[in-house]
C-alpha cells in the first residue's frame, strides 16, 4: 500500500522553474529540491510571487518555463494528485457545514491517514468543542485551525502551506511549527511561505528568497 520514493529522488524538485504573467517575470528561474523530512521556507515581500510559486507547484497554474518533478517523475496529475496537501488563503471548506461534515467530505476525496479521526485531529489543533458548529460561526483563527486539522487528517507527503501563520495567535504559530516538525519526522516535507514576520521553528530549514 505504501509507496516509498527512491532514496535518490527528492519528493519534489524544481529545475530552472520560472513564471511570467503578461510578459512580466513573476519569479525565477529557481532551482531547489525538497527531500523527505525537509522543510523549505519561501520568503519575500508582498507581491514577490510566493503564492504563485506554490500554485505552480500544486499544478493550479502551468509553469512558464522549467520543470517540476515528483519523486523523480515529471509532474503530472498522476504523479502529483493525492500527494499534495494545499493550505491556501481560502479555507477550502464550506462555511455552512460544520468541521465534521467538511472533514468527512474531504476524507471521502483524499482518504484518511491511518490512526487519525476527525475528532482526534480537531483535538490536536485545540478546537474539538467546535466540531459540530457551522464554520461561519468560527473566528478566522479557528477556521485556520480547522485547516490545520485537515492537514493532520488527510494523507499526502508534500505540504504546500501558503501563509499558515496568518490569523493565528502565539500558540497557534507554535502549533503550526510543531505540526510541520511532526510531519517531517514522519518522512513528509513542507514548503511554507511567510513574509518574514514570524520566527520559524526549524533552524535547519532552507530558505528561498523571492524578490519582487
Amino acid at each position: 500500500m505504501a509507496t516509498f520514493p527512491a532514496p535518490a529522488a527528492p519528493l519534489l524538485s524544481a529545475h530552472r522553474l520560472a513564471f511570467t504573467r503578461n510578459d512580466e517575470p513573476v519569479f525565477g528561474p529557481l532551482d531547489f529540491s525538497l527531500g523527505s523530512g525537509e522543510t523549505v521556507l519561501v520568503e519575500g515581500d508582498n507581491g514577490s510571487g510566493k503564492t504563485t510559486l506554490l500554485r505552480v507547484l500544486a499544478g493550479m497554474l502551468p509553469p512558464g518555463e522549467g520543470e517540476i518533478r515528483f519523486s523523480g517523475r515529471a509532474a503530472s496529475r498522476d504523479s502529483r494528485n493525492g500527494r499534495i496537501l494545499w493550505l491556501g488563503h481560502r479555507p477550502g471548506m464550506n462555511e455552512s457545514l460544520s468541521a465534521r461534515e467538511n472533514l468527512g467530505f474531504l476524507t471521502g476525496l483524499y482518504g484518511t491517514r491511518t490512526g487519525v479521526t476527525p475528532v482526534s485531529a480537531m483535538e490536536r489543533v485545540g478546537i474539538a468543542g467546535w466540531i459540530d458548529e457551522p464554520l461561519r460561526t468560527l473566528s478566522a483563527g479557528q477556521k485556520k485551525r480547522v485547516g490545520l486539522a485537515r492537514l493532520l487528517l488527510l494523507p499526502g507527503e508534500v505540504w504546500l502551506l501558503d501563509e499558515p501563520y496568518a490569523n493565528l495567535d502565539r500558540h497557534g504559530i507554535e502549533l503550526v511549527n510543531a505540526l510541520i516538525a511532526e510531519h517531517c519526522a514522519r518522512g513528509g516535507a513542507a514548503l511554507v511561505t511567510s513574509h518574514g514576520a514570524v520566527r520559524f521553528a526549524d533552524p535547519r530549514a532552507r530558505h528561498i528568497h523571492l524578490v519582487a
Partner: protein
Amino acid sequence: MASTAQSILGGASVVTTAERAGSFAACRALLRRDFVLAWRRRGELFLPLLYAVIVAALFPFALGPDPELLARIAGGVLLVIVVLAMLPALESMFRADLDDGTLEQWLLAPQPLALLALTRVIAHWLMTVLPLIVVMPLLGALLNLPVKVLPVLIVALLLATPLLALLGSVLSALAAGARRSGILLALMLLPLAVPVVIFAAGAVAAAQSGMPFIAPLMWLAAALILAIVLAPLACAAALRIAVET
C-alpha cells in the same frame, strides 16, 4: 488532550500509511455533502418550484378561459417554464466552491475531476429539476394538458433536463470566474437549449396529434448519452481554467 493525540499520530510512522479513497466513495461523499448543504438552505430549493407554479397558474388568466387553446399550447409552455426555472440555479453550480477554495481541493484530490463534476450535475439535477418534474401533473392540470400527453411530456423532460443540466454545467464552469455571470450564462445556454426544446416539443406535439413520438425522444436520448460522456470532460477542463484565474 494533546498527549493522547500525540500518541495517536506517533502510531503512524510513515506518512504514506493511509486508507485511500475509492472513486465510488468519493462520489458518495460528494452527493452526501451536497444534500446536507441543500437541506441547510432548503428555502432556496423551493424557488424554481414556486416560479413554475406561479407562471403556469398565470397563463390561463392571461389567455382567457379557452380550454382548447390552453390544451393546444400547454406542452410547449410547460417545456419553456421548466427551462427558464432551471436557469438561475445553473449559474451557482460551482460558484460557491470556487469562492471558498473547495475547487482547489477537488483539483488536488486523487480522483478524476470529470467524475466529481458529473456527480455534482447529478446532485444538482436531483435537487433542483426533479421536483419540477414531480409536480408536472399539477402544472399540466392547470394548463388543461391532455392526460394522454402527460406521460410523453414527462419522458421528454426526463431526457431533456439532464441534457440541459450537463450543457449548463460546462457553461457554468466557464462563467464561474466572471462577475455577474448569470446573464452571460443565459446568453450562452439559450442557443444550446433551442434544439433540446425543439425535440422535446416535437415529441409532445406528435403525441398530442396521435402521431408516432418515439423518434424525437430517441434523438434526445442519444444526445443525452453523448453529453454524459463528453460534458464532464469539458466541465473538468473549464474548472481547471476557473481555478487558474
